[in-house]
């Protein structure tokens, strides 16, 4: 299945791009996706403990199971106001 990834804030600089996509086997979790992304974008590894993850417009944890076509957003802590 195809998962689209969107980086926000300085995660775009760390990844060197704003968007990416990954092909993952059915049943893959966000944790699986992160393993792939950390291999592909090693600068993101340093931020792994403060990375926030959303699927669509909802926050999700690393054990969340992805579906084909999901849009996953990765970003650092938010700072509105």
């Amino acid at each position: 299945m195809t998962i689209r990834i969107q980086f926000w804030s300085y995660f775009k600089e760390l990844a060197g791009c704003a968007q990416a996509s990954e092909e993952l086997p059915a049943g893959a979790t966000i944790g699986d996706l992160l393993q792939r992304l950390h291999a592909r974008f090693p600068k993101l590894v340093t931020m792994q403990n403060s990375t926030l993850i959303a699927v669509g417009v909802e926050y999700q944890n690393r054990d969340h199971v992805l579906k084909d076509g999901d849009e996953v957003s990765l970003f650092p802590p938010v700072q509105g106001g």
Partner: protein
Amino acid sequence: MHRSLTISPDPIDESALVAARRMTSGMGAAVYFSGVVRGSEDAQPISAIEYECFRPMAEHQFHQLFDELERRWPVESVRLVHRIGVVQVNEQSLWVEVVAPHRGEAFVACQWLIDEMKRVVPIWKKPQP
């Protein structure tokens, strides 16, 4: 509960917002907060802050917070404006208003909303030198 959310690059027109307030006769308190870009960030002087927003998620998260706020306190109205894009020093980036029967709940609901926003709403700051 009346709710109004504006996420926009336009300057915040606080006087117009205040003039547009409506309160029914059971309401005794309006608490509002105006957040302004300060001239320094982490002790470094700055000229502006650029706010980036993941808008569909920001709107969704704000409305979830409004739902929770309505469950917790007898708030009649909440209005929130967050400016995005480049906001110069001394300009407003955030305006929040909560209308409730009594001041205690209006103060606590307004503070709660801002605290929660800073925890979950996907908006990020980039200081400009």
